């Protein structure tokens, strides 16, 4: 553990100031795990549905009458046995409870509910944010690392003088062109780490490998200006990530990507 921190400190100092030791230093990268939280609650499993229905029935049977129902009953009683008085309920201009119920029923019938499966679901269009409304979607970008084009979480190289979180924010801005208010960072602490060593051919004394620190952010609005994205980006759920990511990378990432 002490060796690791020593190495990290080695990265922060300029090479000239450091004394002669030949310890290798790691390149630091800040990456962004941008998630669009679920918009619609997940559908209940069959067992949950049965239990929910039973509980609803029990509660309705045990519950007391609300104000509206009490009023409704009183008015029905009065209509059935009209007392000989000056004011007759049927002719007066008081709004009855049953009229209100009819109005509400009409309004309910006319209301249209938007569907759970959107068009993007049917087309399996992974670049749109409008699919899979009941699960978290994470952003994946195609980036050039070394000499390969890989699918990764958007990452950028750390520059001295800024915090790692600022690096992640820069990555957000560069890949999505999104202003910083569109995404809410959950905190200053990184949520995960992935480190890898460079193959023998490239590794020098200065850079033995790279460490990527991941920061989590939640997308506030569900609409993005798609034209601004400069690279290929895709929004995927946790299970679909296997199609894009390398197995070791995926293993480290799935430790902090949560999908209920």
């Amino acid at each position, binding site marked *: 553990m002490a060796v690791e921190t020593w190495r990290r400190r080695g990265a922060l100092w300029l090479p000239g100031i450091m004394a002669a030791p030949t310890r290798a230093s790691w390149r630091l990268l800040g990456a962004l795990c941008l998630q669009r939280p679920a918009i619609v609650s997940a559908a209940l499993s069959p067992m949950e549905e049965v239990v929910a229905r039973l509980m609803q029935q029990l509660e309705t049977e045990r519950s007391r009458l609300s104000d509206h129902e009490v009023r409704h009953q009183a008015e029905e009683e009065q209509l059935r046995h009209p007392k000989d008085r000056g004011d007759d309920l049927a002719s007066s201009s008081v709004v009855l409870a049953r009229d209100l119920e009819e109005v509400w029923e009409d309004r309910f019938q006319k209301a249209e509910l938007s569907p759970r499966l959107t068009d993007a679901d049917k087309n399996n269009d992974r670049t749109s944010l409008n699919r899979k409304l009941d699960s978290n979607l994470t952003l994946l970008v195609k980036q050039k690392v070394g000499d390969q084009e890989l699918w990764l979480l958007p990452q950028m190289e750390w520059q001295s003088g800024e915090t790692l979180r600022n690096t992640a924010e820069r990555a957000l801005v560069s890949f999505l062109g999104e202003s910083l208010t569109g995404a809410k960072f*959950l905190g200053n*602490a990184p949520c995960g780490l992935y480190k890898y060593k460079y193959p023998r051919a490239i590794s020098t004394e200065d850079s033995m490998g790279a460490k990527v620190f991941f920061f989590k952010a939640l997308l506030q609005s569900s609409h993005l200006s798609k034209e601004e994205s400069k690279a290929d980006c895709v929004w995927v759920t946790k299970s679909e990530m296997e199609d894009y990511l390398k197995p070791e990378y995926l293993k480290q990432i799935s430790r902090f990507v949560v999908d209920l």
Partner: protein
Amino acid sequence: MRLPLGQVLCLGKAAFPKQVFTVSRSAAFRENPICAVGGTLLSCSRHYQSQPTHGIGRFRHLAPKIVKKRKERVQMKEINPGTDYEYGDLNIEIIGYDMCLVEGYARFVHKLCQNLSVRVIGSYALPTKTTEVMVVQEVGNKMYMDAVLTTHQRVVQVRSLSATFAPILLEIMQSNQPEGVRLSVKEYTESDFKIRLKTRTELEDLMSQLSN
């Protein structure tokens, strides 16, 4: 050597001890009239206050005397995040229209904090606000009442949440949020404390009259 009552000189014969025993028994009866034949309590000379073990459990006279004075509940001191990277007092507010959902979620958050060993200082409810939704009638210009909405608010107060753990806690709370319930995490300030107190209108009137 005097023998105590009940003991018997062993003289070999079985009949003899029995005799002596009966004598001793009747003597004991005379001394202890409570168990006399008849069943009811004949004498009222109770021994419990002169018993050696009387007052064996008393400790209040040894403890320091606490005088309870009526004072306003002082505000808790705030800890700003220092080098330890901990938040001070945080208010987790849960606001919604449906009371069952709001209360259930508040219970969930409270239990979650306890299980994750995040220190919970308090949890309270703010008064319910009633909103009347008035809709303009289609035919005329008059407004009639369409619905009455009640907004419920519950607060869970948390202290010294570490900054490395806060994002994880936030994410768990956010992903378990029920529909129609709003979650907001704020720092605890004096205005939050003042909202809970009622204003004393008569006192304020009198004070303004005095100053005038």
